[in-house]
């Protein structure tokens, strides 16, 4: 069997969505457009499955490298796949397939689909290219492709609120990328290369590396929307069309997070400090409490889910203090780690959390979008008694909510369990309180929705809306598939943990 490095799969995974974007642009008036795009998504999914099989086939889970045009690292651009990136590509392939099916049903007979599909595939091309990129400047280009297409997708609704949200999202994204670009300029000046592996090999604890790490962290935190920099996220995610909301919360914020984790633990791991990781952890903790509180107070269903994303992203930032401590203990036991490393239980917990949250949040956005379509309004107050009309979508919402709260047997339970055991193992018990209270707060805002949904008492003052039947069964069934995946992940945790465990780390690069 050929290995992943020698096969053409790495460039294909970048080019396929680009071709789909061009085809979507040229054949924009084709009546079979929906089927065509689902076909592209299916082919991409097959390629991703093949990539994963080839990656797992190699015993040591070594990172695969493809040299574009055989130029090699300092001159050309390398595509690199390690355990973390193969998981992110797999997640992207799976969610793209389900969300494209949903999008085809959502945009059936809608003239907006002319603009939707090219932007949609550009966004996915940017995501795929980012996850296989091994070049610092290439990552900047990918971040911009993602940022521009995502902002344009948010603006697709053409309402005043969505245009304002898109403009703010775009400006914040551009600002974050400029911080990143500044850091790349500094890195190039002191290392003379843009290849991540070569920068990692020559990076140390010098002033240029530290300044670059600070700039990268600030720039990417803007794009990830960690607590004080989250101001743009709720409006952007809530005002986008439903499939776009789902991919923004599930994958787009995770893409910036992926870059931050890569720089923090692999490329510039020498310049990270214990204090900085504690700051990120504290901000993550505040994000959990504050995001949950704002979600509880929200009056619009999609705003509630968007604030829940702010809160859930906070959990992932507990990775930084937790793994820092793990690195310190391992240096006591003889191995010579300098700074933090991305291996062991903390990184497993974070990666698992990323996967679990992506599936649960996408399922939740899709079911919420269905409820809003059926109800004709995004007001939470209008959801009263909707469980009798849309029982399946309320069930999907509940399953996704169970995972977000972290109750067994969902993926969210395993993710939180890993975080809890890691915090106790590393002796940082205070994070346990944050994780547990975050679960309680999540239960508060989700049960508020559910108690309304199951409330059948009629009150006279409420306007009785004419409920609409959903236009396509695909809308509900694609959301249901995502909810089932969320449950299945809870039973097959070993698979994800095995992929992410040995290869991700300093040794992989």
């Amino acid at each position, binding site marked *: 069997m050929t290995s992943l490095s020698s096969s053409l799969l790495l460039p294909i995974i970048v080019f396929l969505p680009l071709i789909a974007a061009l085809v979507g642009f040229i054949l924009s008036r084709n009546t079979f457009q929906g089927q065509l795009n689902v076909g592209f998504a299916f082919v991409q999914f097959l390629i991703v499955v093949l990539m994963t099989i080839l990656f797992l086939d190699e015993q040591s889970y070594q990172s695969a490298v493809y040299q574009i045009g055989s130029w090699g690292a300092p001159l050309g651009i390398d595509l690199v796949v390690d355990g973390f990136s193969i998981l992110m590509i797999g997640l992207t392939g799976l969610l793209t397939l389900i969300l494209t099916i949903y999008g085809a049903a959502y945009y059936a007979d809608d003239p907006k689909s002319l603009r939707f599909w090219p932007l949609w595939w550009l966004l996915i091309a940017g995501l795929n290219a980012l996850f296989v990129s091994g070049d610092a400047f290439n990552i900047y280009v990918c971040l911009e492709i993602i940022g521009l297409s995502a902002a344009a997708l948010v603006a697709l609704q*053409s309402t005043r609120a969505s*245009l304002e949200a898109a403009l703010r999202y*775009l*400006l914040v994204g551009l600002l974050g990328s400029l911080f990143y*670009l500044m850091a790349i*300029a500094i890195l190039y000046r002191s290392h003379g290369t843009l290849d991540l592996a070569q920068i990692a090999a020559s990076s140390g604890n010098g002033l240029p590396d530290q300044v670059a790490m600070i700039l990268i962290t600030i720039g990417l935190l803007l794009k990830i929307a960690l607590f004080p920099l989250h101001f743009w996220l709720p409006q952007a995610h809530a005002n986008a069309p439903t499939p776009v909301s789902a991919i923004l919360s599930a994958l787009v914020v995770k893409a910036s997070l992926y870059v931050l984790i890569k720089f923090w633990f692999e490329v510039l791991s020498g310049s990270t400090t214990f204090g900085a990781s504690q700051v990120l952890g504290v901000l993550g903790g505040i994000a959990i409490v504050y995001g949950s509180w704002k979600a509880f107070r929200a009056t619009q269903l999609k705003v509630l889910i968007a604030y829940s994303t702010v809160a859930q992203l906070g959990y992932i930032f507990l990775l930084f203090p937790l793994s820092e401590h793990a690195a310190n203990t391992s240096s006591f036991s003889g191995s010579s780690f300098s700074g933090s490393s991305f291996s062991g239980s903390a990184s497993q917990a974070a990666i698992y959390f990323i996967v679990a949250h992506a599936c649960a949040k996408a399922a939740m956005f899709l079911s919420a979008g269905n409820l809003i379509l059926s109800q004709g309004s995004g007001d939470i107050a209008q959801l009263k008694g909707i469980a009798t009309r849309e029982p399946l979508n309320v069930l999907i919402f509940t399953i996704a909510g169970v995972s977000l709260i972290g109750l067994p047997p969902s993926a969210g339970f395993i993710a939180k369990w890993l975080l809890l055991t890691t915090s106790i193992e590393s002796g940082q018990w205070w994070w346990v309180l944050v994780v547990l209270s975050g679960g309680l707060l999540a239960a508060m805002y989700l049960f508020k929705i559910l108690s309304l949904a199951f409330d059948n008492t009629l009150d006279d003052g409420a306007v009785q809306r004419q409920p609409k039947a959903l236009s396509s069964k695909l809308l509900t069934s694609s959301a249901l598939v995502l909810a089932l995946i969320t449950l299945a992940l809870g039973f097959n945790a070993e698979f994800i943990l095995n992929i992410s465990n040995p290869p991700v780390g300093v040794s992989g690069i």
Partner: protein
Amino acid sequence: MSSELLYSLTGLGLFAIGLLGIVVAGHVMRKILALNIMGIGIFMLLIAIAKQDGSFVDPVPHAMVLTGIVIAAAGTALALNLMVRLHRMSDPKQGKPK
């Protein structure tokens, strides 16, 4: 003072001015301009880096600047488009965007 240092410091200065502009500016147009000034600051720094050695010019930063200009143009175009559409949506008689 070598010309490379002069260009580098000017680039850093432009970056700082642009950053200040984003934080302080009230109008969207000013924010877009401030972003462009930040970008130009970085491009200037990159061009200075390309001539670090003195004996030869490194083409890689030049390629980065070219790519960066294209991206900045695309981002600015999208931002201006969104701004104009918002402007048209607000009351046309007043002629002032909010």
